[in-house]
């Protein structure tokens, strides 16, 4: 290892993390109003999902069109706990349930009275769901478009299930009107700032995990699975297990994101977990550059920000703008904005006449991986 690669390697990474932490933890709170900071916190939740999508899709080649399911699992688990904690001590029944019927709390809500159970479930439930689903599909060699359709159908089914059970899930309104968060009032600006800080720390931790997975031997193996799954099998590996792991990591990231989304945004409804938000998340990742570490994060934040600010001005225009952007990226920049540099360099080299012959034989790894 020479000095240069040392500088561009480890120190660049540490420096990048420090810079991101300073920007998010010091600069942003100083410059933004509490309302805008809350919005940024929401975008950070989407960015967490995006980190997982980058891993599963960008590196593992699994077109995860239904991450809303795992996001929703984490979110609803957290929301159930918050509703139960807010419920009057006399009855123990959350406000919206008491309004609809007098049957009391469904049995499967009960475990989430406990904060500890809730925190564990936020990680374990999405992970378990992803492992079961992953093994079931990847073992049967379901992949490509079939896997995409399956995961999307799941998101649709999940949303329909939520809407169909208003008594226990709040139906299409979802769960909202949370007052406290593990004993702290959500009205207090200081507590809201703390929540934002938690979101920043969670996102940075996820990026660190994703980076470690990408540079590890496992990361190489995952890319190998993406590009030539059969070959990996003939080397004695079980690709289903390799892919399922990345899928489960992505699911946990989405679950934690959902769980933080609930207190930060104050509402979770089927609109946040169905097909449309699932695809919206994916679009951010595609635009940012799915195979890179930071492309998905920046893409997701940019797309979410653009959505908010554009739909403030042109309410229905955003959907079209998003679709157009997605098509442009897919058609002209498959590596996302992260690959803009190499692609432009490639165009420049092509326009420049008569490249020396030996130069063209030097292999260049395009795409910002």
């Amino acid at each position, binding site marked *: 290892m020479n000095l240069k690669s040392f500088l561009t390697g480890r120190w660049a990474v540490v420096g990048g993390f420090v810079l991101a932490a300073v920007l998010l933890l010091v600069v942003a709170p100083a410059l933004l109003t509490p309302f805008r900071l809350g919005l940024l916190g929401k975008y950070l939740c989407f960015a967490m999902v995006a980190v997982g999508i980058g891993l599963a899709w960008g590196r593992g080649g699994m077109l995860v069109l239904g991450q809303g399911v795992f996001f929703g699992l984490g979110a609803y688990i957290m929301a159930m706990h918050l509703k139960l904690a807010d419920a009057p001590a006399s009855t123990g029944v959350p406000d919206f349930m008491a309004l609809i019927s007098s049957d009391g709390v469904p049995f499967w809500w009960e475990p989430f009275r406990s904060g500890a159970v809730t925190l564990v479930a936020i990680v374990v439930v999405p992970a378990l769901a992803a492992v079961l689903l992953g093994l079931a599909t990847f073992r049967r060699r379901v992949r490509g478009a079939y896997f995409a359709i399956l995961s999307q159908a799941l998101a649709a089914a999940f949303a329909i299930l939520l809407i169909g059970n208003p008594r226990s899930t709040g139906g299409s309104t979802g769960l909202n009107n949370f007052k406290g968060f593990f004993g702290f009032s959500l009205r207090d600006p200081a507590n809201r700032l703390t929540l934002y800080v938690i979101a920043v720390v969670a996102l940075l931790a996820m990026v660190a995990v994703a980076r*470690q*997975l990408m*540079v*590890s*031997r*496992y990361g*190489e*193996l995952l*890319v*190998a699975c993406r*590009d*030539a799954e*059969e*070959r*990996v*099998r*003939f*080397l*004695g*590996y*079980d690709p289903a297990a390799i892919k399922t792991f990345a899928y489960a990591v992505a699911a946990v990231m989405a679950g934690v994101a959902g769980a933080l989304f609930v207190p930060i945004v104050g509402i979770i409804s089927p609109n946040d977990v169905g097909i449309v938000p699932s695809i919206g998340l994916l679009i951010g990742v595609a635009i940012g550059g799915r195979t890179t570490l930071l492309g998905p994060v920046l893409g997701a934040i940019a797309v979410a920000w653009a959505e908010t600010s554009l739909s403030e001005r042109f309410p229905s225009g955003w959907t079209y703008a998003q679709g157009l952007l997605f098509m442009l990226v897919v058609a002209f920049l498959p590596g996302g904005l992260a690959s803009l540099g190499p692609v432009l360099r490639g165009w420049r080299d092509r326009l420049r006449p008569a490249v020396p012959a030996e130069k063209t034989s030097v*292999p260049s*790894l395009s*795409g910002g*991986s």
Partner: protein
Amino acid sequence: MNADYLELTNLTVSFDGFVAVDRVNMSVLPGDLRFLIGPNGAGKTTLIDAVSGLVPATGSARWAGEDLVGRKVHRIARLGVGRTFQTATVFEELTVTQNLDIAAGARRGVLTLARRRTRVPEVVVKAMETIGLTDLAEVPAGTLSHGQKQWLEIGMLLVQDARLLMLDEPVAGMSAEEKDETGRLLRRIAADADLTVVVVEHDMDFMRAFATSVTVLHAGKVLAEGSVEQVQADPRVQEVYLGPGEHSKAVTEAVLGEGV
């Protein structure tokens, strides 16, 4: 002498009633460089597929004391069975080192997988020398020439610790020198490391130069088996390759190679 030999007994593969491999009996010993030849559609690739677990088969394929029929692909691979494909498949975006490192790692534990590769394993370095790609270690495999990809595949089989190597048309599309290199490489591997090697090939000159024994497959059945000379002289083999009737020595040599 080691016990790693391959023995096929009544191995049969059928696709919806079409029998692609028909009750094949064949055994290959360690150190042998067995060539599997036959016209297009004879079932050569399907036979390799069956042994490596890619297609379901009946009968038995015993290898090192285990029956491979009915096992999963990656389990068969872990028993030391490695194969290549008619079109070279390497991990194009990964470097030569990464390709070999992955091939060497099927038995790695979770902790090793979760960490970065700090230095290149000894077996990988050695395999890279054997296949002559040391200078290209950090080059993405996608940029290698066709021949180099085939060598990389052979290298992957070596580090994978495969003791039964099945190669599907490894020299197709190679230049004459590359073919020679490959042939010598395969000979060296089979003899030095005492591996069992099965090579599917259409190139008769290549076969003549390097085969230690030959099995001829036709319409899923074993037509002939023996040394190169025996097989070339076999009238049934000549009939399959040249059509029925008498053939001049010149025609025969043109198709089946010299020295018939």
